[in-house]
């Protein structure tokens, strides 16, 4: 049913730390690897070894330059996947009921057997989180690795989304935002977790942690700095004589 649930029992989602992400794209690759062989249709590529390769991905990493009024520019790597919005427009536009938000954990999924591939859900998503698979003609999106997080065949430490498990920098965190004591709720509260395009009213569950401000040298003196001051301001001895002698020319 493509009406949204009034509320969900839990709110599973990700915290993405823009301060920590190094832009290595490991999450992109691990996501494609896991999801092409698990939930639903594979993530196909067209012309993968040719001149114009294109393919379906559920997670992509952009890079932005932020130039403040003062000081040096900052480079921010920006991973983007479905934000599992509370007020998900992609769910309500779907004519078939293929797109839905789960009551038990808030994950937004596509039931591919019902999807007619009309593409309207991708049109309604502001974040570009949905891609139509060109080979299967059905809509693909992040499942929050619903086939890992509850999977008892996997060792405990692997029961989190593939991107989170893979990130070598620890820039991605998975948890339940409905619990104020969860790792993700605390992180988001501590670091000022942000919504993307809040003005569109989608109420994303995933939060982004802003990069910390860059260091600056203005007004800051290192405690050791005084010890590094030049000791002799005036040359003495032979160099003193030489200095004075040369001045006379």
């Amino acid at each position, binding site marked *: 049913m493509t009406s949204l649930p009034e509320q969900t029992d839990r709110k599973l989602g990700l915290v993405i730390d823009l301060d920590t992400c190094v832009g290595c794209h490991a999450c992109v690759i691990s996501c494609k690897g896991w999801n092409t062989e698990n939930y639903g249709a594979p993530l196909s590529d067209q012309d993968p070894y040719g001149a114009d390769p294109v393919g379906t991905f559920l997670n992509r990493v952009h890079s932005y330059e932020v130039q403040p009024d003062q000081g040096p520019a900052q480079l921010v790597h920006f991973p983007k996947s479905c934000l599992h919005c509370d007020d998900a*427009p992609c769910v309500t536009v779907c004519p078939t009921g293929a797109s839905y938000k789960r009551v038990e954990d808030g994950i937004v999924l596509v039931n591919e057997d019902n999807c007619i591939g009309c593409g309207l859900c*991708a049109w309604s998503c502001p*974040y*570009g989180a949905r891609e139509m698979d060109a080979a299967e003609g059905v809509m693909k999106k992040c499942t929050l690795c619903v086939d890992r997080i509850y999977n008892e065949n996997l060792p405990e430490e692997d029961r989190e989304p593939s991107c989170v498990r893979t990130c070598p920098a620890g820039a991605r965190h998975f948890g339940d935002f409905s619990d104020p004591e969860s790792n993700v709720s605390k992180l988001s509260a501590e670091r000022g977790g942000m919504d993307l395009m809040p003005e*569109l009213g989608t109420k994303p569950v995933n939060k982004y942690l802003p990069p910390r401000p860059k260091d600056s040298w203005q007004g800051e003196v290192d405690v050791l700095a005084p010890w590094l001051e030049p000791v002799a301001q005036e040359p003495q001895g032979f160099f003193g004589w030489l200095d004075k002698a040369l001045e006379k020319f």
Partner: protein
Amino acid sequence: MHPAPSVIIFTTFSGLGLGLLFWLGISPDPHGGWVGFTFFFIAFALACGGLAASTFHLGHPERALKAFTQWRSSWLSREAWSAAGALAVMGLYAFFWVLLGIHIAPLGWLGALLCLATVGTTSMIYTQLKTVPRWNHWSTPALFFALSLGGGALLAGYINTAVFLIALSGAVQAYWFWQGDQRFSDSGTDLGTATGLGSRGKVRAFEPPHTGTNYLLNEFVYVVGRKHGDKLRLISLALSTVLPLLLLLTNPGHLLAVIAVISHVTGVVVSRWLFFAQAEHVVGLYYGKR
């Protein structure tokens, strides 16, 4: 947005066909016999042809019936119901009148209402999208209604009504074109809000996530022909509005009327191409584009 031919054909011709069916449905003294048959045939051919074209852009047209299930929440599903209802009721009305000679006026009114509902729900599929500021405005349904009813009146041969409605649709169209240029910046969405980094400085897309293209860029960031936008707008207005009006005001015979129809339809096709090609989706911002 990518101007897919199937969607342009769908919205243009189903709009025209439904507009014609509307006027046939409310006519107090419709043509009977062969003339009536011809009118209904043209209307159904346009409406059904357009609606059939809309299934060509589906990834799985064989599952299209599932689109009837979510009418409570989805405008696309509501459109499927109104379209099916309009065609069924108008089909029945035409059957009784043209073949049996029995004019059941209330059936025609109900069918006309369903035709309007179909045009309205079609326009809402686009209007509801906050992600495309150019469409997300009351003037989008106004434009769809004006073009459908104006084109329908022209096809039905209601000259006076057609003159009025085509002039009106031209005005709405012009407003929609030029006022629409404002709407993206009015929406307040930019790369700053898209990344949440806007408060820290000027945000610039530095490196895209992929070297080639992808579904998102092909579907949502269509830039071909943008530089000819203004010229195409004038061509569209000249063909859809100005020329038909001039012809209609000369009290035309059949031949000139046919030319007026062809000109109007061509103008609407150009307008629909621009409707998609000039619509910018907010996702383009992530790629530093619009």
